[in-house]
């Protein structure tokens, strides 16, 4: 597609449930990022993939959060045993391969708004 897409756009779940959020990056982009944006705040980095592997997962808040990118394209962010504090907009971004122009520029999707009741 033309840009980064994320599904669903909205997700409402109950405390303790498991959720999966999907990100489809720009075609040809090898790098993929997940951020979390709480109300009134700027995005906070969660994890970065280069290809299929997580190159930096230092932003994941705890072991309830996990992300995969098995074929180096689509990524899924998984949250187990959701808590009310997980409510936020989850943003995905992608960037072009190293050595290409604008490789350091991240292009963001519209986000998934997660509400944990």
């Amino acid at each position, binding site marked *: 597609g033309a840009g980064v897409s994320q599904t669903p756009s909205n997700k409402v779940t109950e405390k303790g449930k498991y959720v999966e959020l999907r990100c489809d990056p720009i075609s040809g982009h090898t790098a993929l990022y997940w951020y979390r944006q709480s109300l009134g705040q*700027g*995005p906070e980095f969660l994890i970065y993939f280069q290809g299929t592997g997580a190159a930096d997962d230092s932003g994941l808040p705890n072991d309830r959060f996990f992300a995969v990118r098995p074929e180096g394209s689509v990524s899924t962010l998984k949250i187990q045993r959701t808590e009310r504090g997980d409510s936020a907009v989850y943003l995905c971004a992608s960037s072009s391969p190293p050595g290409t122009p604008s490789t350091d520029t991240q292009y963001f*999707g519209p986000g998934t708004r997660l509400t944990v009741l």
Partner: protein
Amino acid sequence: AQSVTQPDIHITVSEGASLELRCNYSYGATPYLFWYVQSPGQGLQLLLKYFSGDTLVQGIKGFEAEFKRSQSSFNLRKPSVHWSDAAEYFCAVGQAGRRALTFGSGTRLQVQP
């Protein structure tokens, strides 16, 4: 650790007036600096970026920003604001060798007719 401060939570300007949004960063080496804009329900759109070279950078929609190392600042400016510029603006900093961006908490811009 790097950090970004956007001192103004909310700014209101009249349409046609000039605009300056402040951004201060904390980082030891030369940072990569970005300004993004976020409209309600939309993703973040890149306005401009600075990596090196000329410290005055031009972006889309008539925006520009100036990197001032001595002040650790990267303020965003526009000479004449349009009503469609009403949105939230985020400054972000990155560094060579690490892809994670650190964002400020944002400045909400309101434009009065």
